[in-house]
């Protein structure tokens, strides 16, 4: 059976006009249709926040739960019912502040969840407080004199938790978004997709450097497994390895040729260079990496749980309650 985006659409989204969540939702509908899993076999599970409203606009099974717990709830759903395709949707506050513990453990366990992190670097629903991804010195309603703390970078947290899949996209970039969503679905195990999403009301322009086509042409690099890490309007720049780090070079200048430019390896077990890619920022003179940065096969928790059930089942002689009772020291009173 084939599906269209329409088959996954429901209701009228209530986000502010211009909110990045609208753009992302449209891409998700499209990606779902292209993936082709029947809506009744999909569960979309979110926490609380503007972004967590998303399941209401999906014609699939869904849960809009409590703040920060989406990953935990999704874990139970996937482990109990591995036939479901489970998407977990969170904002940066939901997923990394109150839900930070669940986020790292879902990654560590490698549960087959498609985790979406809509990162607007602000708390939208509670009207404009700084979030764990807001930069140091950020002025917000709860930090009128600037924050005095450093932000998390989602990729680093995911890698630190031994995550096996990390991708990044920009909410307004439909093509790039659909592509990474499909890759996230294809990946068996926990996947984290960071979506750079603009909050027009409380943190407008937060991702300006890459939010429109022009910006992306200048400041983003689309990474693709097996392809050269080149970028720029005419692919005139490339990434080369220098010492323990990366370096931007202009191809054909300073003696650098296309042969010096690195080929992206998303499947490489060792995450060192992938992390370097994921951490690049324009402030440091690098482009922002978009696309699938890490995608490594590893045993998934849900499969392992069920494999162990089957294995133990084959070994043990008891398989139901009545047989279980008989494994005890029993005596008879006549």
């Amino acid at each position, binding site marked *: 059976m084939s599906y269209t985006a329409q088959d996954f659409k429901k*209701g009228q989204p209530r986000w502010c006009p211009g909110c990045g969540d609208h753009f992302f939702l449209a891409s998700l509908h499209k990606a779902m249709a292209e993936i082709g899993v*029947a*809506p*009744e*076999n999909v*569960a*979309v*599970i979110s926490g*609380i926040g503007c972004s967590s409203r998303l*399941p*209401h606009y*999906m*014609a*699939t*099974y*869904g*849960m*809009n*739960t*409590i703040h920060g*717990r989406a990953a*935990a*709830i*999704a*874990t*139970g*759903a*996937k*482990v*109990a*019912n591995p*036939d*479901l395709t489970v998407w977990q949707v969170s904002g940066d506050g939901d997923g990394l502040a109150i839900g930070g*513990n*669940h986020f790292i*453990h879902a990654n560590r366990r490698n549960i087959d969840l498609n985790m979406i992190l809509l990162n607007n670097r602000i708390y939208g629903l509670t009207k404009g407080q700084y979030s764990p991804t807001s930069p140091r010195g950020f002025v917000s309603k709860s930090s009128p004199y600037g924050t005095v703390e450093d932000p998390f970078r989602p990729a680093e947290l995911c890698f630190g938790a031994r995550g096996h899949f990390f991708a990044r996209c920009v909410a307004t970039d439909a093509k790039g978004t659909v592509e990474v969503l499909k890759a996230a679905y294809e990946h068996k195990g926990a996947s984290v997709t960071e979506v750079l999403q603009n909050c027009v009301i409380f943190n407008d322009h937060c991702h300006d450097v890459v939010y429109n086509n022009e910006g992306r042409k200048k400041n983003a690099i689309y990474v693709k497994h097996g392809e050269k890490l080149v970028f720029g309007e005419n692919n005139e720049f490339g990434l080369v390895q220098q010492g323990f780090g990366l370096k931007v070079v202009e191809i054909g200048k300073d003696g650098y040729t296309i042969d010096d430019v690195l080929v992206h390896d998303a499947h490489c077990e060792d995450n060192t260079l992938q992390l370097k890619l994921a951490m690049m920022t324009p402030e440091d003179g690098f482009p922002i990496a978009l696309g699938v940065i890490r995608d490594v096969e590893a045993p998934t928790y849900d499969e392992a*749980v069920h494999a*162990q*059930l089957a294995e*133990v*089942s084959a*070994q*043990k002689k*008891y*398989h*139901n*309650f*009545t047989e*279980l*009772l008989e494994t*005890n*020291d*029993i*005596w*008879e*009173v*006549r």
Partner: protein
Amino acid sequence: MAENLEVKVLDQVVVRFSGDSGDGMQLAGNIFSTVSATVGNGISTFPDYPADIRAPQGSLTGVSGFQVHIGAGKVYTPGDKCDVLVAMNAAALKTQYRYAKPGATIIIDTDSFGPKDLEKAQFATEDYLGEMGIDADRVVACPMTQMVKDCLADSGMDNKAMLKCRNMFALGLVCWLFDRDLNLVANFLREKFAKKPAIAEANIKVIQAGWDYGHNTHSSAINVYRVETKEKTPGRYMDITGNKATAYGFIAAAEKAGLKLYLGSYPITPATDVLHELSKHKSCGVITVQCEDEISGCASALGASFAGALGVTSTSGPGICLKSEAMNLAVIMELPLVVLDVQRGGPATGLPTKSEQTDLLQALFGRNGESPMPVMAATSPTDCFDAAYQACKIALEHMTPVVLLTDAFVANGSGAFKLPDITKLDAINPPYVPEELKGKWTPYMRAENGTRYWAVPGREGFAHILGGLEKDSNTGAISTNPENHDLMTRLRQQKIDNIQVPDLEVGGDAEDADLLIVGFGSTYGHLHSAMDELRQKGYKVAQTHFKYLNPLPKNTAAVLTKYKKVVVAEQNMGQLAGYLRMKVDGFVPYQFNQVKGQPFVVEELVNAFEEILKK
């Protein structure tokens, strides 16, 4: 048996095995109780283990006790004080003697009463018996350690392994004292150590040595007792702790409902054994996930229920605080979930290994918003099975989270469990949305009894979204409409009120009692024994006991207002009494409240109730 031996027949007897945490007192006590149950005696056991698990050997804080009560007929409690105290070292004698009745027989290992041991136990002199005021005539003092070593000298076992058998020597002595058939004990051990026959035989040898020692040296001085069997309920039995019974109840309920059992849990004393037990039974399809915290334990169980399993989460007091938010989510999403709270003592981490009934109000009301949730409390170790089973049945049939309260006392205590026949257990029928509602169904549409239908993901045509935000009762869309919220609040309340629970039963002088004793959960046995004693003294007393706390049994008001005097006795500051006052107009009971982290003492209950009767 020697001719000069007098065998006294007793109605009941209490033995307390005590020693260092590693001395195997629980095993000795368990074997003794199981062997007694095999001949049809009533049994009840209670382990009292130290909070400080790594206390130094021989120290006062490292003593662990295991009390066994056996009776000719049914026994309801592990007993207030013991008739026989086994003290494997000086510290055990020092700390456990207060649990001995005046005149109790004391069994000690004199090898553990050297100067160093006495110092560790803070005895001032070498006359430890004198210091404790114990009459030497009541003491069976023997060099157990040495005798065990001698007995196993040619077994090829190393010193450490031999010393591990000391508990069996004590058990042998106790078996002699109670005229127990050692063949039964030997059979038990051979089965238990089927894979290690050498260990079984070594243990049996030591038990025999203990028995012989008692027989040879003490038979003229100390009486041998026998507890005969009065009433027997025929059937096949096993020894079961409350936590194990709870786990079994969950497994049975899931199987009966045709669902997968999913436990999401985070370790905490005294609930952890439920996680341990369920984790063993993967061959029965049980999924256990040891989560990163209690929040996740509860949340993931709820996710599992959404996905079509029976979601269960287990914890103790502090963990319940963390679970509250997800429990509330289950209330508003109207999904099945069973939350087990094995209550322990004190606020915060309080008394982790001790028992209280202090989470009742938290279970009933400890959540934001109007959040009605069924609450049950198990009344004995074996009742944990039925309580767990019924909790699952209510959760699944009424689409609601249910709190099941047990506590350290029933969770760790054990009793003889008559093997249930799963085909005879109550049917469990979740309200799956009928196929003919396809196209018309909305997520908060209700069946006749007010229960929301369950549409498990995977069913075509029933895709829907649930959530923590209030929903329109008709469409299921998010709604902040005031009238709708009022209506939904009432519908959720009505659904819980509609749940059928058994009526209260009244025991004792139901017709004309001058005092009705009321309690809930694990204190059932103690209150029952107190009633028995008062009636034996000639008073007219009745007892009723709550296992279902929300909704309350329909006859609650009728029962509570029928008697001249009512006393509510509980191990808290009056949570049940206050709740009943709120629910029953004009109900003003007497109260007996004790919060010591220890089970009630029947004698103290009797005294307190007698005073009320005399008022």
